[in-house]
């Protein structure tokens, strides 16, 4: 005889509700204690902000406000007319090596730029499409292998 959904619900409900609570593993208590000890052993600056000493919290807020103010002032100063050439002249002797390195990178960039312009656009798009297709194929193969060999185990 097929039971009605109501009978089935009643049966399952009574069956499930008659179950006692499952016994927690013995290791749970020690794990929680160890985690609490580990948290307590952390220095205050690695704990949550709420756990910081009040003085440290106040100092942090004041310091943050000061840094924000400096950043805003720097932006305003730069927008008001920053002379880059003046700065470069002032530091030209100390940072001569920067110019050398910059020259090397510019030359490399120019080389690749020339090569890039020499390649027909169709080749570039074709290459990109091939890379995308290979990536998709590899991903699909991986997913299929996982589903067939591992997920159904």
């Amino acid at each position, binding site marked *: 005889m097929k039971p009605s959904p109501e*009978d089935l619900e009643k049966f399952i409900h009574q069956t499930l509700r008659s179950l006692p609570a499952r016994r927690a593993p013995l290791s749970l208590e020690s794990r929680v204690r160890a985690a609490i000890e580990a948290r307590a052993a952390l220095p205050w600056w690695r704990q949550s902000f709420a756990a910081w000493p009040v003085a440290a919290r106040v100092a942090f807020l004041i310091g943050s406000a000061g840094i924000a103010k400096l950043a805003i002032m720097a932006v305003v100063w730069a927008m008001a007319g920053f002379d880059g050439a003046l700065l470069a002249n002032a530091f030209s002797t100390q940072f001569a090596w920067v110019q050398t390195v910059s020259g090397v990178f510019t030359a490399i960039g120019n080389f690749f730029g020339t090569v890039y312009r020499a390649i027909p656009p169709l080749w570039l798009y074709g290459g990109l499409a091939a890379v995308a297709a290979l990536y998709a194929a590899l991903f699909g193969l991986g997913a299929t292998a996982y589903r067939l060999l591992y997920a159904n185990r």
Partner: protein
Amino acid sequence: MNDDTPVQTPPTGLITPADFTTFMRNYQDMVFSTAARLTGNDAQAEDISQEVFLKAYEHFDMLQTSPTAGGWLKTVATNLSLNHLSRYRNRWKFFSEYRRDDSAGESETPDVDFAAPDTFFSGVDADERRAWVEAALEKLPEHQRVPLVLYHFEDLPYEDIARKLGVSLAKVKTDILRARTALAAIIARSGAPHENFSA
């Protein structure tokens, strides 16, 4: 709150307050059961239980005198378990759900007299019966087990379950009905000595 007498070994070298240890012993079975039945995995349930008690420790000032501490713990355990499941599901969905077996149990409505579990399980000792049902619950697919547990153990109405799981009300009702049928079939297949299932 747990009705069972705690059997855990006494703690040694505690730096946690003794009150918290007692509190944890009172509720750890309930928290673990909630997480284990939702996740269907004891190792994950232990991780989630640990997280629940760490949160409880942070709010222990409030919880130790609260008459609703058990409810708070159960809600946190449920929410953390559901978060865990949705994270895991999203991460592995593409790889693991090759075909979704929505039809599990559909064709296996057992022909059985559901008069009462006590009658059905008579002749089976309580531990064996518990182990059977827990194992049957674990065997259910996640999309059936989770709403079933929320409905029958957590007493959530269908609407709340649908909202929590982010699925339609119709789907929740269907999944729960299929879960009940599948659960009954699995229990029947487990082979109670006197059972009259014919699944």
